């Protein structure tokens, strides 16, 4: 009961004032010490509105994953502030990060257990979550018995188990084959449309970013700065092979290549 009241209070606090779910204000992150320090992020400012789907894109070393770790609270910025206004934040990795000694159901159940969901409610919740990712027949399989795509869907169900309203995704489909990835794009889009989650999605695949995001944010490499933002106007559901997606992806790719060339030029 106390839990419910607290959540409702939080709801109104969060949704009432229209403030963004994620705010980064002049965030810098430096690794190493003076002399050979790496500026992973340099004064990055970014707002993600509630319910928005934002994709971060950039070449290697642009600090995409660093940024996600900061938002997830797994790391602290060197300077600047990170504000996350969420009941709960979830993070999905490129590898599913499922616990190999537990079945698909067991992994989801553990998330619920750590969220203090009573045992009597957990079984039904696990089933609901498996249904959400269309894996209700595979609950008793262990991660190594599932395909890469099924593992990521299980990881998605586990991430959603704790009723997170902000979902951070670190190249979650990067290791999947194209066919599976396309289907998971459809699934994620449908899920996002239904639930109103706020999603911050990191990828190095430009088409994927345009396929999924409301906004695509392009980061430069070393130091990681925001180079440009692209709103994605095309309606949903989208297709990765639609001409609108292809056109915007081409523009972004050109800009990205320009960035990469800058690093190959010895005079710069």
């Amino acid at each position, binding site marked *: 009961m106390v839990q419910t009241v607290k959540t409702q209070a939080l709801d109104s606090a969060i949704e009432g004032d229209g403030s963004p779910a994620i705010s980064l204000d002049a965030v810098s992150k430096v690794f190493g010490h003076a002399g050979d320090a790496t500026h992973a992020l340099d004064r990055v400012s970014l707002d993600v509105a509630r319910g928005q789907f934002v994709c971060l894109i950039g070449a290697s070393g642009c600090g995409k994953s660093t940024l996600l770790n900061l938002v997830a609270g797994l790391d602290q910025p060197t300077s600047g502030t990170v504000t996350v206004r969420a009941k709960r934040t979830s*993070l999905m990795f490129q590898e599913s*990060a499922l616990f190999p000694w537990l079945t698909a159901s067991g992994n989801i159940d553990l998330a619920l257990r750590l969220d203090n969901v009573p045992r009597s409610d957990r079984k039904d919740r696990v089933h609901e979550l498996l249904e959400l990712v269309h894996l209700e027949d595979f609950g008793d399989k262990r991660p190594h018995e599932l395909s890469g795509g099924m593992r990521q869907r299980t990881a998605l169900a586990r991430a959603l188990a704790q009723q997170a309203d902000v979902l951070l995704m670190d190249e979650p489909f990067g290791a999947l084959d194209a066919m599976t990835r396309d289907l998971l794009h459809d699934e994620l889009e449908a899920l996002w449309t239904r639930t109103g989650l706020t999603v911050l999605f990191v990828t190095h695949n430009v088409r994927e970013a345009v396929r999924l995001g409301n906004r695509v944010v392009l980061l430069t490499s070393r130091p990681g700065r925001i180079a440009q933002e692209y709103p994605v106007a095309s309606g949903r559901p989208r297709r990765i092979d639609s001409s609108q997606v292809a056109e915007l992806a081409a523009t972004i790719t050109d800009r990205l290549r320009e960035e990469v060339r800058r690093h190959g030029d010895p005079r710069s």
Partner: protein
Amino acid sequence: MATLEAELAGLDALELSVPPRKSRASRTWTTIWPKLGAIAIALLLWQLIVWSGWKPTYLLPGPVAVFQTLFDHLGDYVSAAAVTLQRAAIGFAVALVTGTLVGALVTKSRILRSAVGSMITGLMTMPSIAWFPAAIILFGLKESAILFVIVIGAAPSIANGFIAGVDNTPPLLVRAARMLGAKGFTAFRLVVLPAALPTYIGGLKQGWAFAWRSLLAGELLVLIAGKESLGRDLDTARQFGDYKAVYATMIVILVIGILVDSLVFGQVERRIRRRYGLVDAAATD
């Protein structure tokens, strides 16, 4: 939406189709025949050495004569083995508790780790037989002297297995656990311990080998009056010049060591590795 569901289900079905596994009998046979073959070759080599006349047969009897002795006195060997195995079980159990406790303390404390961490590995390089003079001085010619050496021989492997298992927990799983809200002891119990299990079992297996070796060395050196054991039998047989019995006892010691290793620890290890997906299910024996 319905299309998406159908497509996902189709893809899942395609990706999970695995070739049918061979029958249990045929798998067992595949496992066993190389082992039987190796034993046959070893016995044959033994017999060839005997036939070569390198040593007179009263010093090096052939396998047939040795197995004859073994079966003639099977009852004696069984009762001696029972005494030895009881010591092994007690010693290993104490080593298990000690090693696990030490391992747990070392993983939890930075100071202990730098103080004791390398010493544990150092202890493992100490031949167990070198402990016996001290053990006899401290405990006398008693069970406790043997027990002491078993524990000091086996516990470091077990502690090391525990420490290595905890240290090698994939950082990704630790991050995932943190994102799910597991902290401190909860994270340790629900994520780190299960992740450490395969390596820990490996440590137990190695600990068993050390315990068995220490025990037999102990039974040869620490002769406790009136108590027959495998080590004692071995020594008595040598002193009385009953060389067939020497070889027969050696075979019993070897067979018990191998059986416990493969049937107890090997089985547990294989089951856990398969469960964790650490082996290709189709390729396991």
